[in-house]
């Protein structure tokens, strides 16, 4: 029985010079980024790294700045094993040289903190004859989808290759150099941004100066700018609308509605003793109701509000009656002024100007 080292955990310390040596030696384990090298997520799993021990050790040796660290377990393997179980066909990057020679060479590099996770403990080495189940699972995963990844859509259980990965505690993951760099950069930036007293005084002076300048400018040209935003000429139709001779409205019976000026937004109505001009806009949400002569009511098609012929609301959701416009007579012609409105709920329908007595 010979002893053999299998790597259970690998990580990268600070100081990577991005030389690509490790990715060349073990591409499934290392990935060289722009500014540092990281461990691929798959390789955070002991079952994944064990069969790739050789490649990792190679990479650690070839690393010119020695930042690749790893934990390993020593297991016994049968003497007569021609090739060690880790050298499965799936791991095509494996280099041929015997592991016995490599393992001792890696020994001095184990100076880094050694915390072998309990969950990955000692796995019994499979004997030469039978295939290692973890490698079988990897093989299956690697070949099931064109070698892309170990994802089996309809599998009924977690693939063996993923079980160790799932069981791994997040806190036990090796410290990632990339993460450390980010933290370091953040701390540096924080330190730099700390305000010194002198900076504060000069900054305040600048801030006060600019604020004063801004306020002064605003006061001096603000009104001019505001005027600029308003139109010079406002194209508004005359709110006073001539709606014909008074005689035609005198002929209406109480409760009648004249719809001739609906396009101008006015209903002329005859109340008991007076003539008034109703605004056609529904007081609920601004639709245009229809006059229904048979039911003698205004009915809104949007939400079903209903008003009597005098504009008082009686059905549907509307909260208040229709509004009335100012109405006057000049030379026998009725003039409706749409700029002045009278609201019933404010008691304005009795104000002079809101009606013409018959």
């Amino acid at each position: 029985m010979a002893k053999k080292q299998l790597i259970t955990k690998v990580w990268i310390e600070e100081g990577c010079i991005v030389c690509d040596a490790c990715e060349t030696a073990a591409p499934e384990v290392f990935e060289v980024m722009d500014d540092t090298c990281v461990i691929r997520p798959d390789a955070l799993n002991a079952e994944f790294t064990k069969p790739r021990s050789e490649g990792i050790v190679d990479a650690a040796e070839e690393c010119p700045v020695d930042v690749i660290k790893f934990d390993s377990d020593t297991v016994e393997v049968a003497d007569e094993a021609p090739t060690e179980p880790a050298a499965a066909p799936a791991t095509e990057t494996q280099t041929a040289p015997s592991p016995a020679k490599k393992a001792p060479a890696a020994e001095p590099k184990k100076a880094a903190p050694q915390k072998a996770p309990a969950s990955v403990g000692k796995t019994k080495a499979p004997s030469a004859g039978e295939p290692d189940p973890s490698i079988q699972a990897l093989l299956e995963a690697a070949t099931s989808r064109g070698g892309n990844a170990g994802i089996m859509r309809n599998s009924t259980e977690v693939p063996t290759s993923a079980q160790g990965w799932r069981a791994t505690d997040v806190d036990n993951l090796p410290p990632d150099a990339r993460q450390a760099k980010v933290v370091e950069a953040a701390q540096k930036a924080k330190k730099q941004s700390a305000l010194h007293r002198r900076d504060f005084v000069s900054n305040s002076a600048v801030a006060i100066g600019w604020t004063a300048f801004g306020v002064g400018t605003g006061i001096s040209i603000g009104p001019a700018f505001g005027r600029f935003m308003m139109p010079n000429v406002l194209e508004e139709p005359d709110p006073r609308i001539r709606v014909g001779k008074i005689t035609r409205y005198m002929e209406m019976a109480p409760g009648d509605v004249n719809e001739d000026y609906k396009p101008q937004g006015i209903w002329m109505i005859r109340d008991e003793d007076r003539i008034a001009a109703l605004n056609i806009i529904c007081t609920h949400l601004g639709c245009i109701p229809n006059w229904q002569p048979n039911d003698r009511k205004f009915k809104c098609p949007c939400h079903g509000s209903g008003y009597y012929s005098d504009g008082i609301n009686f059905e549907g959701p509307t909260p208040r009656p229709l509004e009335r416009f100012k109405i006057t007579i000049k030379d026998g012609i009725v003039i409706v002024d749409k700029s002045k409105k009278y609201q019933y709920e404010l008691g304005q329908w009795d104000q002079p100007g809101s009606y013409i007595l018959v």
Partner: protein
Amino acid sequence: MDSILAASSTLDSVKHFINVACEPHWFLIISVLAFFIFLIGYRTWTKPIVAGTVSALATLFFLASCADTNFAKIVTKADNVPIVIMMVTVSFLLWLAFRQAAINDERMEKGEPLIEAGADDKVLVWPDLVYSELIALVLCTALLIVWAIILRAPLEQPADPNVAPNPAKAPWYFLGLQEMLVYFDPWLAGVVFPGLIIVGLLAIPYIDKNPRGNGYYTFKERKFAITTFLFGFVILWVVLIIFGTFLRGPNWNFFGPYEFWDPHRPAALLNTEFHDLFWVNTLGRPLPGHYLIRELPGIVLLGAYFMLGPVIMKWLFFRKISRDIGFIRYSVLCVLILFMLLMPIKMVLRWTLNLHYIVGITEWFLNV
């Protein structure tokens, strides 16, 4: 000849019966009953044979109804076709979710692994996601092109600010909001309630910290949460869209599915106010002069609804939940539920009593 007459009169009475059942209060009551009957017997209703029979019968009923001119006119209107499709898709997706929940719940009782057990939570972007997206994109484009060719967009006369079409309907997805506006003032139904819907949906993850049902279908473990959410979605949103699409006709009156949309159909909808019901009808006294005294009964009623509601709900069926989630979460939950229930309560009051306002301070525009 007699038999034909008899058959047509039988058909007419069936149509009349369905028209009556589609009157809003019956429709709402039937919808709510059907909703709870489905939830109680979800394991039976979602069985493929049962669900298949129900959907086959519904399709048959739909096709047979299309023989009626008025019905066919409503459902084949270009604007309304999406709502017909929506009714099918909502039913199908509900069935799909509840079917899986039923299977999972049964497996849980037997101690078997769930449907989702062992499923890897990772899927590759390429090819899985990109292929699915590509296929969906191609199918949707094809569908939209065919749809646009077959069902022309209705072009109407040029817009005139002084004429509103009768009935004037919002886009289908806003019909629920438009229906709400029939029962409440614009500031409530157009601002407060939609805001509460959004805030309430945002608040769900903070109120409901129960992790059960994460990543797997179940109904048994999340009865209250699923029922409450679906009540708001299916009854108070989808059913209101169906109201607005198929049942609201000229003058925003309700029409049965087989009824002719007659703009001159009389409708007696004279509003009553709660203060009239209380002071005049019950106490037989004239209305008090000051509006605060006049509206006191409505204010007390509404206050009791929001103050005693949480206490009564806790006492009746929220004992465990209120203990689990704490005072503040429970209060927020109760306020949201009470606002949600205010909707159907006011709707039924409007349909049955023509109640205009519970609290009607028109002087301040403070009407509920």
